[in-house]
């Protein structure tokens, strides 16, 4: 794929800057952990459920240690010590815990190696389950095959039962990937709601039970259609790694997983979410879940013509972060979007340039290409056309994960018919333009090539700048989406702590060992 005549040295240089930027942040990450990381460890030991006030048990336990013990040691040692001291199985211990009201910190702390030994059966069981899920997925995809470009739609009724109906209808209509949008505001909750839910605003709560229900529904309809229908949910937010773990356990296939989104659009503290992201991406990698990053969102806030390079720069950085977390390229669903005002002269050519640029810079990544949203208005016919133009660019630049635009984007989350029509729109383009990408060549030094090279050049300058200033300072300056975020402000900072030299995290230790081997 080489339609843009890009400067390879500049690309390499971008990658080097990004690597250095990510390494800088990684140095910070390595020294810290968060409450959600610790809760994730508990979840992967097999702890689930809520107390009588609907507080998740994992939250109760971590809070307990935070208040009464030394969380900087990590949760692993506390839970292992408790099991050792009480000589109980995890389940029995937890029952007793809630009956007795004794703190988790009431026991003598044991040695690191003992911790590992005691907890191993628990986390191994769950990691095996995850491995099994990865295998099932591979098997099914091998059996049914996978389309070159996959059609991705969302369901967002707030009610998992209604979501199921609509997801199945979407699959029958031709969707390959279904995302269940989360209820507004969930990403700011410092816990994961529990159980099946039927009430949400602009989306359905991400709970493990809801994941399970939807996974089953999609497997069912997939079996009927002889296709594997991928399931997506959202990890970014205060519970990033927990959702990564839940997604792994319930065989989700894609997770929106991007600290940058949380920082910029949710005002989540940057330190908190970078730490969370590292652990969650390791889990994604282990479970074979594709991550989706949120660069597309920048252009819903900033001007898509002037700020296109911020998307590209961020993609390089997200790639570098992902490499740090051992995520292979084939799981890097880096985001980009079709967001230029269609009234701008040659905007379509600029969209081609940008989409092709992303494709050529990250040839092995299953890029997530987002539809027009910002310049959609209530004119549903116009919107249907804009989506057709978007679908054409997808086709012409051979994107992988193709998020379908809705004609009612400016109005409401999709009706069942909106989604159906969106799929038919994409299919008409796919079918009628099947070989277009192969057929068409861009003029040498033409508008498209020039635009792509310019964006790359600007991204290069920006990466250089960020490398000098560091990621935290850059975010303070408001480089991305023109949104300024301070290093020590935002939600969730109180959940960050420095790791003691004696810190132990049995899961991440296991994962790191795994990645070193594989």
């Amino acid at each position: 794929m080489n339609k843009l005549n890009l400067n390879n040295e500049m690309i390499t240089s971008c990658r080097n800057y990004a690597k250095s930027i990510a390494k800088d942040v990684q140095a910070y990450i390595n020294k810290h952990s968060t409450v959600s990381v610790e809760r994730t460890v508990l979840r992967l030991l097999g702890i689930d459920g809520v107390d009588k006030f609907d507080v998740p048990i994992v939250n109760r336990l971590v809070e307990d240690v935070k208040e009464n013990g030394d969380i900087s040691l990590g949760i692993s040692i506390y839970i292992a010590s408790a099991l050792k001291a009480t000589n109980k199985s995890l389940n029995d211990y937890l029952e007793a815990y809630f009956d007795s009201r004794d703190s988790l910190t009431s026991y003598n702390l044991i040695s690191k190696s003992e911790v590992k030994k005691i907890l191993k059966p628990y986390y191994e069981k769950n990691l095996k389950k995850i491995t099994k899920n990865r295998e099932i997925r591979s098997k099914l995809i091998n059996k049914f095959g996978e389309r070159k470009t996959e059609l991705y739609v969302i369901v967002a009724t707030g009610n998992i039962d209604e979501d199921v109906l609509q997801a199945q209808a979407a699959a029958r209509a031709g969707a390959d990937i279904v995302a269940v949008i989360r209820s507004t505001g969930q990403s700011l909750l410092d816990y994961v709601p529990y159980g099946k839910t039927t009430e949400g605003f602009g989306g359905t709560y991400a709970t493990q039970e809801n994941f399970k229900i939807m996974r089953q529904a999609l497997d069912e309809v997939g079996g009927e259609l002889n296709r594997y229908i991928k399931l997506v949910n959202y990890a970014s937010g205060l519970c990033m790694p927990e959702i990564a773990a839940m997604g792994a356990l319930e065989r989700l296939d894609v997770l929106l997983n991007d600290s940058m989104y949380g920082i910029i659009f949710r005002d989540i503290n940057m330190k908190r979410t970078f730490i969370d992201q590292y652990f969650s991406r390791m889990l994604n990698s282990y479970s074979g879940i594709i991550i989706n990053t949120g660069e597309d969102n920048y252009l819903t806030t900033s001007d898509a013509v002037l700020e296109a390079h911020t998307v590209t720069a961020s993609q390089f950085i997200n790639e570098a972060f992902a490499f740090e977390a051992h995520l292979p390229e084939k799981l890097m669903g880096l985001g980009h979007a079709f967001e230029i005002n269609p009234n701008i002269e040659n905007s379509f050519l600029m969209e081609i340039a940008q989409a092709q640029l992303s494709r050529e810079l990250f040839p092995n990544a299953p890029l997530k290409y987002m539809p027009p949203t910002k310049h959609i208005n209530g004119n549903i016919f116009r919107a249907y056309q804009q989506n057709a133009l978007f679908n054409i660019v997808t086709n012409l630049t051979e994107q992988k994960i193709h998020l379908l635009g809705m004609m009612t984007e400016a109005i409401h989350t999709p009706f069942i018919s909106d989604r159906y029509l969106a799929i038919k729109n994409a299919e008409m383009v796919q079918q009628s333009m099947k070989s277009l990408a192969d057929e068409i060549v861009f003029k040498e030094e033409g508008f498209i090539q020039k635009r792509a090279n310019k964006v790359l050049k600007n991204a290069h300058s920006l990466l250089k700048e960020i490398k000098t200033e560091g990621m935290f300072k850059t975010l303070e300056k408001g480089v991305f989406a023109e949104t300024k975020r301070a290093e020590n402000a935002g939600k969730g900072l109180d959940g960050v702590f420095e790791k003691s030299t004696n810190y132990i995290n049995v899961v991440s230790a296991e994962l790191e060992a795994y990645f070193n081997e594989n």
Partner: protein
Amino acid sequence: MKIRPYGDTLNDGLVQVSFTLPIALSAKATQAAKELAKNMGLINPSVVHSEEIGKNFSFYIIYGALNAFVDLEKIKVKELEKSSKSKKEIEEIIKNNFKKDIVVIGASTGTDAHTVGIDAIMNMKGFDGHYGLERYQGIKAINLGSQVSNEDFIKIARKEKADVLLVSQTVTQKDVHLKNLVDLVELLESEELRDKVILIAGGARINHELAKELGYDAGFGPGNFAEDVASFIIDELLNRKED
């Protein structure tokens, strides 16, 4: 079972409406659009788009919840029970039951010049992979093409001793097709031919119910092919034989 339109949740009643008003865009005009939507039974209609589309014309797109149910039990449709036999089956039945070929004459009548529909039913090659009546053994299919006046149509029917008349009507603007179709029935009646033929109408805006109302034996809209029409013809001819 009572049902309502469905947006994304059972019984939410959500529908989309669009129309133009013959006045310039203004807050008042938008309110007028909303009032009309309310008048249509929408609760909380939301004007999601409004645009001036020419001096003194404005266009509106509205979403709202329809405050009405329809009771499926109470709905009666004059639906043609399609016996849906295959070409082969039909030819077999004709062979076993009729001594001579069944004569079917078709035309697009009046000033209507649309032949694709009647051709789809009658011509050799048929439509969408379904062969037309000309290819059926036991059927003599005569396609008169377009712009055939009702008078000429009847003249030829008489001459050819037609068993079945097929009328296609595509132009429906200002309901011209209704007039044309009714005129034919009247003419047939006045010539005492109506009872001697099976009279069938078809076209983009024709359905069985409408055709029956106009005095036809059946009506076929889009999505019907030669075998559907032939099945009906055979069933009807056998029926009439029995009587």
